[in-house]
């Protein structure tokens, strides 16, 4: 029975994958990419395809690609993807090669998500087994979270739009997923590579180092370690082999070494490509500096652009610090509370970053929505899920309408569009908060199953 189910599941999985790829290819063949590449939701100053092409043009005309304030991406991306912005095949859409690269990046990300999800599921089942909870929880009802996450990632309209809209976020997302995959399957050089590249491309994934350390130190998500100890205390038998491994520093040092190696490598490559144009300092100033100082005030789905357009110059620096510190302040409490679930911690960090980052795009949302699929079993009784779903649908329908009213027709004003951005931010806040509380409840449920009473709230 279970085998059959699995068979059906995997069969339809590949069907869905192929269908989503074909759907992307169909969209690519639409003229002018349906104008998606200039939508504010898709292309931010950091991920815009046109800016990439402009940077490549500047580079080709032997100027610094950071001359002017057009391009703010990485010089490596420019060297790799730049040539694809001008290469044309007769009779084919203009940016076919670039679109194909995005599609491939999406598929690879989805496969990595699937592999990681399967990994997580196995780890979860193993930990349930060692807690002897297999009887209480019906394991056969467990969904294949890897398949689900991969399908969510592939079929999410946000991902499709980001891919067809020629933004660079599929590549950035792939780097993040590569990092998590490497950490889950203990491929330390790969994890370090993913982390360094993701940080290099968009700065915010730098905080993923904390979940990666937990992943490498104590393995993938499992119920709190204390539960195992309690379980064994109850049974009065301490079976060391069934205990999850304790925190080990070996892989972390290994990771640090590799991360150092990769970052030196990346910096040397960047330094070579920017040798005659001000070097690395110029790069940091126009990539990380641009991200942190929110210089570009063009509308996007975040909340910072309008705030900094309206706030008084005198307070600008103060609020810059406050908003960035908002991300940093939550790192520690979350890390303490969710340290036994590093992958979930990574999801929360990614979600928070995509909510509070200076130039968010739907590509970032696509990433955390995809990662959310890993935790379908844990989040099974999350509250407000229908409300959130409807909210996401509503915002993604209303936001282009409001943008059109404001920018193109001139009948609405900026507040209309900003309202949808605020609603979107609120939805993300609700998602993160409810998600965290659902996972904590899930842990609590396991504890109750073991001990039979609410006790030992501190995990």
């Amino acid at each position: 029975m279970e085998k059959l189910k699995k068979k059906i599941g995997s069969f339809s999985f590949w069907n869905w994958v192929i269908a989503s790829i074909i759907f992307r290819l169909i969209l690519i063949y639409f003229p002018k990419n349906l104008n998606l590449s200039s939508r504010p939701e898709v292309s931010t100053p950091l991920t815009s395809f046109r800016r990439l092409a402009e940077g490549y043009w500047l580079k080709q005309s032997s100027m610094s690609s950071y001359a002017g304030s057009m391009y703010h991406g990485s010089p490596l991306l420019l060297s790799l993807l730049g040539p694809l912005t001008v290469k044309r095949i007769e009779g084919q859409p203009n940016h076919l090669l670039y679109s194909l690269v995005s599609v491939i990046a999406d598929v690879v990300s989805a496969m990595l998500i699937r592999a990681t999800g399967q990994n997580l599921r196995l780890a979860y089942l193993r930990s349930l087994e060692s807690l002897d909870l297999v009887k209480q929880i019906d394991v056969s009802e467990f969904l294949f979270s890897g398949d689900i996450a991969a399908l969510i990632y592939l079929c999410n309209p946000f991902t499709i739009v980001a891919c067809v809209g020629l933004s660079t976020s599929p590549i950035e997302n792939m780097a993040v997923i590569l990092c998590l995959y490497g950490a889950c399957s203990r491929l330390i050089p790969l994890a370090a590579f993913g982390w360094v590249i993701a940080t290099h491309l968009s700065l915010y994934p730098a905080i993923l180092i904390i979940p990666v350390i937990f992943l490498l130190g104590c393995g993938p998500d499992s119920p709190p370690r204390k539960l195992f100890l309690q379980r064994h205390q109850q049974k009065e038998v301490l079976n060391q082999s069934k205990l999850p491994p304790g925190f080990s520093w070996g892989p972390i040092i290994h990771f640090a070494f590799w991360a150092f190696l990769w970052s030196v490598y990346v910096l040397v490559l960047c330094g070579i490509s920017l040798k005659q144009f001000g070097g690395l300092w110029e790069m940091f100033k126009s990539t990380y500096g641009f991200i942190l100082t929110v210089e570009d005030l063009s509308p996007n789905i975040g909340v910072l652009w309008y705030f900094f357009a309206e706030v008084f110059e005198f307070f600008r620096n103060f609020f810059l610090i406050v908003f960035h510190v908002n991300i940093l302040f939550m790192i520690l409490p979350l890390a303490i509370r969710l340290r036994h679930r590093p992958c979930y911690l990574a999801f929360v960090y990614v979600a928070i970053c995509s909510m509070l980052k200076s130039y968010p795009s739907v590509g970032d949302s696509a990433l955390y929505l995809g990662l959310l699929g890993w935790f379908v079993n844990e989040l099974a009784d999350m509250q407000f899920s229908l409300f959130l779903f409807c909210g996401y649908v509503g915002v993604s329908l209303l936001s282009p309408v409001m943008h059109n009213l404001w920018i193109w027709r001139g009948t609405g004003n900026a507040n209309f569009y900003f309202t949808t951005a605020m609603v979107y931010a609120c939805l993300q806040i609700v998602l993160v908060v409810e998600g965290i509380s659902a996972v904590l409840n899930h842990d609590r449920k396991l504890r109750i199953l073991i001990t039979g009473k609410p006790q030992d709230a501190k995990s």
Partner: protein
Amino acid sequence: MVLLQRPHILLLLIGTHQFLQCWIAFGSVNEEGQKQEEFSEELLLKPLPDHKLLAHFHFQSSGPPSTSNGCHHHLFPKAISQLVQKFRIKEMELSFTKGRWNYESWGGFDPLSSSNAKPPGVELWAVFDVPQHHIDASWKNLTHTLSGLFCASINFLESTATYSTPEWSFPPASGNVRYGTLPCEAVCTENLTPWLKLLPCRDKAGIALLLDRPSLYRGFYHSQQLHLTSTGSSSEGIDSGIILEQTLTVVLQPNSEMAIEVHASEKHIQPSWSLSSIFGKQVSGRCVLAKPSSVYLLLDRGLSAANGLTSENFWSNPSFELSANPDRIFLEESSSHSKSLSILYMFQVEKYCESEPFDIGLMWKVPVAWLCQQTPLHASRFLMGSGNERAAIAISLKSTQFTEGFMSANSKDGSCELRVDVFQVVPWYVKVYFHSLRVFVDQQPRAVSDIIEKIHVSPSKDKMSPGVMEVVLKLPCRVNTAALTIEFDKGFLRIDEYLPDANQGFDIPSAIISFPNFHASMVFLEDDSLNKSPLLSKFQEKCPVMSYTEVLLVPLTTPDFSMPYNVITITCTVFALYFGSLLNVLQRRVAEEERFLKAKAAKKTGRLPLLLSKLSAKLRGRRLEPLHSPPSSSSFINSKLVLKVILVAGLAVGWQYFFS
């Protein structure tokens, strides 16, 4: 050339010692001894094809080198000489313009239009004689000084986002040049008054008497310029002082009543005019300080051809009548590519006095129609696209009748090319994508590398520097139309960066289209008296043919100006919601369970232990220890608690000590 110049100089030296043109007399300064300050006033009138009249006032003062004269001046304005000395200006031009020069009907190929047609608003460029790293500082000071001198907001050109450094396509460029424009500057009489103050006779005598404000500002085009040339350079040793040229070009509509009286039936007859009818004033003698002081009437090539004027019959012509007899008539030197010649009638104001004021009038007898000489290509610029997100600038070049003539003249050698330089400055909030540059020749898209010979781009930096594009186009001579398009994104500004009337839009300064293969000059038949006139000798210089395109008005999206506080408070509320609810969810259930445990424990134990445990729980911020817990661990935690209390107390004491 040398042979030609020699007798020229000799003639000057022997003939008089009244006049010496500074730039001709480079070699003869020393022999001449003490140079004098000179001032000349001239007015040139030119009928335009579309029933209008162009009046071009030209005042030139030259100051001797400062070393020979100290800082005392008789005629030369002191403010200007101090300006030149302070900022070490080699060359500078400031123009205030209202209205747009109509290249199609007023011509663009003669020296008059190529040097006096200016973009609307203020245009300033300056060449400095200072080391490269001091130029920007000099420019900033210069803008502030000029702003004070001319009662204009030239000081807005101070910020680096408004001025640019043309490399090679700006014709007067020679290295250390800075160029800035203020397209939306309103030009009015408050700018004219300080300009007139630089003249020795102000507007109280001489030709400047004609500058009647209402009639000037009623015109279709009004451009007031100040051009400074200083050859004072310590390194070269040759020092001929400063030359200050002040020109005022107006295009006026003569009152056509006189014409209607004479030829009521003829609709197309040119209006007759006189100085008194267009300016409402007459010239009552010259400014006594001015030598020479003369008025010219210029009939350009097209007009003289239409009138059937040739070198034989220009004294007596049937089509019009002059109210005063010209003192001299100059004929243009015949050139290769046009048969007809311009004719210049000269009137000397010196002969007239208060009782017999000078008033020249022109009465047309028969209708004439002619065309002015046009630039090789007529340039215009427009915006494409709709909406406030992105758009495209298009510069279109259309061939004029000139090109056809040029083409037929050059068609013998098969491949002939027309070189066009385009200089375009865009403000930073117009974010140009240079990779989207497209070239269309005769409506066919062409590869950029085929047409563009050279391109120099300096992309705009947000709030730092404007975008500059300099392009050299090589067009085939038979081109009918050519167009350049380039896409841009409209920037979004902070609320305090918008101009007071934000919904009006922002101006993109004119592009400069120049034709380096062509030079506009008007060489009149050799006559020594021509050299006395700075205006005519300026005509004889080869000046590059250039034209300015229209100023573009780009509407930018505006945020809501009325509610910054709402935005700030609502955004901060969302952030507080995020922070608060997340922290809450991270520790909420703990408290709930603690209460549950407390309630459980309260049932079991008495009052005092409960109180104690409550206190300790509060201090530790931890769950209550079950009473039956092993005492060893309890004591251990207690010692920890004591340590904590001591630490907090120590901190408090330290705090007190530090702040008292």
